[in-house]
């Protein structure tokens, strides 16, 4: 158990260091970060000044150590556009993204898990057909297009929901539904297939042959084992959602992290983009670590290894 936790922790730290390297080189893709960050019409003199001001004229290793040191103490750099440190800017946008992600993950789980469970335990039944349909639909429908269609139908034609923004409590419904759809599809498929598989496992046969009632077999044996795989997928998906959804937030003008990222990219505010990328990865890695710990607590096979 201890070894398992330590190795998960070491891995998480390694991944984070790697992410920092990646974000560091992101703006150096073309070689010269000053040229990338400034508008194309900037004069050579402006580029030179900017390069010096940002410290891009120092040796690469010195720049990286400097960058690394600042991130370690929580300084993710300064936005070029807002002329403010990136962290407070991110924190300002965070509530909107957290709200969107939470509603979306709840929607996905509430629909997908029961559908997959019932469908998987009764293959071929009407509910199973629905569950497979949802699984397919979630994978095949382009979210950004569905967003447009929903805006036409529910906002423009029926006037049930606001087209965009975050002014009323109902505003979250459309973006959350669109955001949750791929996750919902994946979860239905996963729940269904793991239940199908588990129902054929040896311990279910044992439970049946010793005469346990189906209800007990279903809830105590099958569900418990399926839950382990599900929780990890839900955790990972939630992590990705918390990083902000670039496209959906911009379609619905949702004032979250994803929209800020896209705005920052379009005006070449790359220090802010770096900060958002680090933050998103941090959330994903953190949630992965939490699921790993959760695994160990729930699953004795890992605990005793």
């Amino acid at each position, binding site marked *: 158990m201890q070894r398992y936790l330590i190795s998960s922790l070491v891995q998480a730290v390694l991944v984070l260091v790697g992410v920092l390297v990646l974000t560091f080189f992101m703006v150096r893709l073309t070689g010269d970060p000053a040229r990338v960050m400034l508008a194309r019409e900037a004069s050579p003199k402006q580029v030179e000044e900017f390069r010096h001001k940002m410290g891009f004229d120092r040796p690469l290793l010195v720049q990286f150590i400097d960058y690394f040191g600042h991130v370690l103490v929580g300084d993710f750099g300064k936005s070029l556009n807002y002329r403010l440190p990136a962290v407070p800017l991110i924190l300002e946008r965070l509530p909107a993204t957290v709200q969107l992600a939470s509603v979306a993950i709840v929607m996905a789980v509430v629909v997908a898990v029961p559908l997959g469970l019932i469908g998987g335990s009764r293959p071929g039944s009407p509910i199973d057909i629905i569950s497979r349909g949802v699984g397919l639909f979630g*994978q095949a429908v382009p979210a950004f297009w569905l967003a447009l269609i929903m805006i036409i139908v529910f906002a423009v034609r029926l006037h049930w929901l606001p087209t965009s923004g975050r002014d009323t409590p109902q505003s979250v419904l459309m973006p959350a539904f669109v955001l949750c759809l791929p996750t919902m599809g994946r979860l239905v498929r996963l729940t269904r297939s793991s239940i199908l598989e588990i129902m054929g496992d040896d311990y279910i046969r044992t439970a049946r042959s010793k005469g346990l009632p189906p209800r007990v077999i279903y809830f105590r044996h099958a569900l418990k084992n399926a839950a382990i795989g599900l929780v990890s997928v839900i955790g990972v998906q939630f992590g990705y959602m918390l990083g902000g959804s670039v496209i959906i937030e911009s379609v619905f003008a949702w004032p979250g992290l994803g929209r800020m990222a896209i705005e920052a990219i379009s005006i070449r505010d790359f220090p802010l983009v770096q900060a958002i*990328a680090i933050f998103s990865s941090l959330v994903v890695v953190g949630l992965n670590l939490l699921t790993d710990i959760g695994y160990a607590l729930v699953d004795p096979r890992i605990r005793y290894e």
Partner: protein
Amino acid sequence: MSEQVLAPRPGRVGQLVARETQADSLGGRLNYIARLLARDWAGLFGLTLFLLVVLAAVFAPQISPHDPLDQNLSVSKTPPAWTDKGDWTYPLGTDNLGRDLLSRILYGSRVSLTVGFFGVIIAGGLGLVIGLIAGYAGGRTDAVIMSVVNILLAFPYLLLVVFIAAVLGRSLLNVILILGVTDAPIFVRIARGEVLRIRQSGYVESAICVGARPARILFDHILPNLIGPMMTVATFEMSAMIFYEAGLGFLGLSVPPSVPSWGNMLEAGRKYLTTSPWIATFPGVAIMLTSLGMNLLGDWLRDVLDPRLRRARK
């Protein structure tokens, strides 16, 4: 009982399995056959959809009623033919510049398929080579490769793609390269996992016992067994790349705006959502049908080519 797990697999493998497990009752057997047909039907449907898209892409110049770039402002924003103000000269209507939507969608399939196909070739090729090395070499090499893969998987994917696209600029080659390279980790993971599994199998062990060299084991025993799973993943990833290309186009970061692509069309139609909703609707339908076809095809391939993958992919 085990029928529930094994039954819905068509093809030769499925039938063999079925013969072994389906002797119970007539009802069960009928049920099984019905489901088998349903599954095959879905696979067939997926294949048909996919082939239709391929045909549309190949024969776009022949079957398009108009030049996709021809502008004619006097007929701009004509609604689809079956509506009141529609006109059969433009079956799906026209966009804001009076360009024929059907022709643009037919031509757009070229961009989507090119991106999907070459993107998957790059990602699959990189993934296969790196995954083989990681799985076969093991030890420190494997550890290093897998931590790089984990880093890329923890990184916000779309943000990375959008960022690189914004820095490098709009071109078809850039889109293919970006999606191809950034999608490689998925293939690395699958290839590595399969190599690890195959290495432990009886036939590889016996090959080692009779003195086969590593190259022979790699090319004669491991590689052929990798093709099935890789093909399946490639189908799903190709559909994902068509999505991403459209997403980039939607953000104005895919191929140049003059090129008719489904993403670019969505982006253009978005501005006329309230007045002329069909401009954004039809490209989306095209994306959805393509992706539906590829997903059905992928499901079917998975069942036919390698029944074990269902377990491995989780």
